[in-house]
């Protein structure tokens, strides 16, 4: 019985390998023949509404601009992503785009792409490689700037008082680029005025559950909290529940600043529970397709392209909310 099952599995695997080779061959051929562009895109995963909106934006933009998209989901694993990029190289796509799961460990596979003369575009997240010739450009949000925007709003809204402002911070996943950069940008702006003090800063792993748990602990160990700065909406939403449970009013007793502007976050902003959200837009599909066309033609592109994004106050959230896609 077992033998038969393993034979079946083997047969299945072989078939899968064959078909993938087949489609790869034809994809490469079409790219060479009619001048149309084939893009291999490796996504991080589908971990949040933000990411799903990002995927949809890329897929829709590819369709609109007539680019054939080969899409793969890495399910948060770097090895899956490296495998996907290798298979794109074998399939001889015209351009590879990907959002790196982590920052390090990309040199080898990116060199393989360079040797195969396939241009690479990084989206949304950067790699820490010193060799910048490994990729053409990096399209994505400037996380440091997001942190600065959050800090600027805080400085402006407290510029009438000289009292010390106690801030607690919920960081993203430890070591991830958005967590490091949002922390750095924020610290840079508020550091100019000594009245702003970050009295506690812990990671909430970008999740609601952790955001709530950490905030509960903050509320007990620090009786005077004026401001919460959360690196994403979800942690902020979790923290709001903790603040309400402690008998305080989120948005009034404790001012809340978050980053992302997903729908649930915008709803809380419109309801007055969050005070300010810095947008981190996932809708970079159209910009990505423009860049892809340029690099395939061999035109030079800037090494860093920042996604177009904005910020929201409570009033702006009320008008923007009905049209929010994600």
């Amino acid at each position, binding site marked *: 019985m077992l033998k038969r099952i393993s034979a079946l599995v083997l047969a299945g695997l072989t078939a899968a390998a064959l078909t993938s080779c087949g489609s790869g061959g034809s994809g490469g051929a079409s790219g060479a023949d009619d001048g149309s562009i084939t893009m291999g895109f490796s996504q991080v*995963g*589908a*971990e*949040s*509404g933000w*990411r*799903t909106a990002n995927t949809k934006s890329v897929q829709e933009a590819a369709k609109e601009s007539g680019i054939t998209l080969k899409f793969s989901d890495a399910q*948060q694993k770097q090895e899956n992503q490296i495998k996907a990029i290798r298979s794109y190289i074998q399939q001889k796509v015209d351009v590879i785009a990907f959002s790196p799961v982590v920052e390090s460990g990309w040199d080898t596979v990116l060199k393989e792409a360079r040797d195969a003369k396939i241009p690479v575009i990084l989206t949304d997240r950067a790699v820490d490689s010193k060799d910048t010739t490994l990729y053409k450009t990096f399209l994505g949000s400037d996380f440091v700037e997001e942190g600065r925007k959050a800090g600027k709003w805080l400085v402006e809204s407290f510029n009438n008082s000289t009292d010390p402002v106690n801030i607690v911070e919920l*960081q993203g996943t*430890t*070591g991830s680029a958005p967590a490091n950069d949002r922390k750095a940008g924020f610290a840079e702006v508020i550091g100019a005025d000594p009245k702003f003090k970050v009295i*506690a*800063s*812990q*990671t909430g*792993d970008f*999740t*609601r*559950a952790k955001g*709530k*748990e*950490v905030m*509960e*602990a*903050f509320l*007990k*160990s620090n009786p005077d909290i004026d401001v919460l700065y959360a690196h994403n909406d*979800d942690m902020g*939403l*979790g923290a709001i*529940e903790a603040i*309400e*449970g*402690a*008998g305080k009013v989120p948005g009034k007793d404790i001012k809340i600043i978050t980053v992302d502007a997903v729908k*649930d976050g915008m709803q809380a902003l419109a309801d007055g529970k969050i005070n300010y959200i810095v947008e981190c837009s996932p809708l970079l599909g159209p910009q990505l397709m423009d860049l892809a066309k340029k690099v395939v033609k061999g035109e030079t592109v800037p090494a860093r392209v920042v996604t177009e994004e904005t910020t929201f106050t409570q009033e702006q959230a009320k008008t923007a909310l009905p049209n929010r896609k994600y």
Partner: protein
Amino acid sequence: MRRLLWPLVILAALLAVNVLFTPGFFSIQVREGHLYGSLIDILRFGAPLILVALGMTLVIATGGIDLSVGSVVAISGALACLQISQDAGVFTAVVLALGLSVALGVWNGFLVANAGIQPIIATLILMVAGRGLAQLITDGQIITVNDPAFKLIGGGYLLTVPFGILLVLAVLAVTAFLTRRLALGMLIEAVGGNAEASRLAGIRARGIIVMVYAFAALCAGVAGLMISSNVSSADGNNAGLWIELDAILAVVIGGTSLAGGRFSLAGTVLGALIIQTLTTTIYSIGVPPETTLLFKALVVTVVCLLQSAAFREKVFKRRARTAGAQEVAA
């Protein structure tokens, strides 16, 4: 009781550290009509872990292990929130979620007991595939629900006490009764000691094994409801992530051997509380996030060393001997 001495000492030491940093750590007040305080937090956020670890204790007592509980946590929460978001009613949602959890547990038990697959492999299948299933249910999104009845399970209060804590007490009481007042506990230990010998002695070993896996999955299912209810949303990717490892650790700290056989429910509860207190300690004393894992590893290493009889023998006996030698010399 002596087996529980060291876990108790460690828990007390961790709590003492907290009082040093946060003077009001032990204070419990009534705020917004419910109990409020750090100790309540530890119990409330530790409740899902205690439940999962209870189920894990019985599985480990049969000589098995269940790696899939984290995925079951995610699946249960995802299914319940999906049902509620489609206006299915809280009762239907809870019954469906727990029903699916038990079915998944029976599947695990079947693979172990009837197909003869090693437990670590049999449950690894569901650990990996289950998270995919949870993502399939939620469509990779976070499902937000606003239902006061569902909120009660993990985030609500009954007579000022967090409902989750009461739920854990109830499950603990039932489990303790079934395994310590009835013969079931002895049968489980017999299967864990030697499955074949117990079968020959007339115990239906297979039935017992399927039952403990189903129980572990049921506990995980309830924990999943609590976790998703606590934040009013289901997150297929992150709910219950790595909780199986924490649960196994809790069981081991509690003095139950991974080889199977004797088990201690009280030890497991203590183990889970130690883990949750450690997490809370990290937040309250402000260990920098970059060193959190190292800090946890150090504490857990110390805990495990103290739990090891061989280690205690070596260190404490030697010290006693050298002390004795010095006395003689003096």
